[in-house]
């Protein structure tokens, strides 16, 4: 690879194929405008074109493709949730993930690792058992395992957690995996683009125009675009979009931070999560330890990162993995999580005709990328909610019909 780079450096032109086209003018009208060019937006565009033949679609992205939460998560894919609604939804996603590399003809570095959620208390173990039973009922490989099993699979972990909060058992989910998040967004984007979808980066939506209760178009910093349907897939920027329409939602934005260590030789082939300690860790294919904690304590619309986060996280991490005390943190960053009161997303139709929402992705968005794209594309094409996302409709809050997804990661519950 360096030789190839050098060769390109010495010649004035090279024919390396572009993934995406350079900027082009906006058309005056599209059938569907997707706001947000992250994994979800690209997946939705891809399935609209591939499965529904809708190709007069524009994806408008204020920054660059996959530059928001798609590029900021810790890339864990799993389906061992707590509610039947969540389990069915995320399992469909996991199955889609397994075939993505073939679909895209692109290596997404999908790597099945096995996923341990540690229990340090009786009540946590009780919840693990509950989750395992719900999972098994829906045919998902998930079981409660004891200390001996964990000691055998994760031999380098201190099961006594430095004596503070000994591990009592864990929920083990063998299909738990990691994937390269950027590649997922790029693969969907290239697939959508090859089928005729337009991708416009550095294009910001400033307003959404309506007539009566119907969407008629979007006002961007590159001019007005008329359209029949608009879908907002912007995660942490959702309140900025919904406030353009005066649409009330329960979404609040909290930063979620993560960091990676310097790269080391591969030693960790599983994903370890502790809800009680608020840590999760896996080793990337480059050898970095990818680590995350819980969301910041207060609302913030910013991607600033803090020392408090690294301090709190490494304190817990060293209890579990004492040898890591000599490793250095290499990078840290934050994403804006759009948190809902029941830790489930908000998807589908809204009271405004032609405006669809794919939001409330909090700390659980990456693993839902394929299924959210697929079900939202179906919803846009048929103008009614796909059955898998019906439980996640916005009106559940006025119907007092919440989901109660406590299997979500990195949220205090």
């Amino acid at each position, binding site marked *: 690879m360096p030789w190839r780079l050098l060769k390109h450096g010495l010649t004035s032109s090279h024919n390396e194929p572009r993934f995406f086209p350079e900027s082009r003018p906006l058309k005056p009208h599209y059938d569907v405008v997707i706001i947000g060019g992250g994994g979800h937006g690209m997946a939705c565009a891809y399935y609209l074109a591939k499965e529904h033949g809708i190709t007069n679609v524009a994806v408008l992205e204020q920054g660059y493709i996959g530059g928001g939460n798609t590029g900021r998560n810790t890339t864990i894919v799993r389906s061992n949730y707590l509610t039947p609604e969540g389990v069915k939804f995320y399992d469909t996603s996991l199955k889609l993930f397994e075939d993505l590399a073939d679909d895209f003809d692109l290596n997404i570095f999908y790597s099945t690792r096995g996923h341990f959620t540690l229990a340090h208390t009786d009540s946590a173990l009780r919840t693990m058992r509950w989750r395992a039973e719900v999972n098994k009922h829906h045919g998902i490989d998930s079981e409660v395992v004891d200390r001996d099993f964990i000691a055998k699979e994760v031999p380098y972990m201190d099961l006594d957690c430095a004596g503070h909060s000994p591990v009592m058992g864990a929920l083990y989910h063998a299909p738990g995996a990691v994937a390269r998040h950027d590649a997922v967004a790029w693969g969907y984007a290239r697939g959508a683009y090859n089928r005729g979808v337009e991708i416009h980066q550095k294009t910001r939506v400033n307003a959404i125009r309506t007539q009566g209760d119907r969407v008629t178009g979007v006002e961007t910093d590159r001019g007005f675009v008329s359209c029949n349907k608009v879908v907002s897939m912007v995660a942490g920027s*959702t*309140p*900025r979009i*919904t*406030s353009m329409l005066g649409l*009330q*939602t*329960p*979404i*609040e*934005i909290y930063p979620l931070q993560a960091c990676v260590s310097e790269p080391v030789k591969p030693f960790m082939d599983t994903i370890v999560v502790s809800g009680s300690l608020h840590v999760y860790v896996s080793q990337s294919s480059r050898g970095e330890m990818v680590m995350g904690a819980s969301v910041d*304590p*207060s*609302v*913030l*619309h*910013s991607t*600033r990162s803090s020392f*408090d986060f690294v301090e709190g996280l490494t304190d817990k991490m060293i209890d579990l993995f004492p040898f890591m005390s000599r490793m250095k943190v290499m990078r840290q960053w934050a994403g804006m999580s*759009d948190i809902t*009161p029941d830790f489930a997303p908000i998807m589908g139709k809204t009271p405004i005709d032609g405006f669809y929402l794919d939001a409330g992705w909090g700390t659980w968005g990456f693993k839902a990328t394929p299924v959210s794209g697929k079900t939202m594309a179906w919803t846009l094409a048929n103008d009614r909610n796909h059955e898998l996302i019906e439980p996640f409709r916005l009106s559940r*809050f*006025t*119907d*007092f019909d919440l989901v109660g997804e406590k299997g979500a990661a990195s949220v205090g519950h």
Partner: protein
Amino acid sequence: MKVFDCPVIGRRPISEFDYVGEVRTPPMDADETTWAEYVFNRNGAPGLLREWWYHRPTGRWYVMERDTVKDEVLRFIDLEDVRYDIPA
């Protein structure tokens, strides 16, 4: 933002405080839809937010107005200003 400059107890580290959330007034006599909106919906947009913060060491409650983009407290609000009457 790591320190609150509090008019009552002076400069205190933010880690001493619990975040309780947006200051809101419940609708006293309303239908179920209005109540559901009060219970679940939030002003999630970036900008100024009046929020409750609880100081654990002293057990006191404060209301602060904060810029949720810059993470800066602009002023402390007199609790009288957020008080409301509960109907008899």
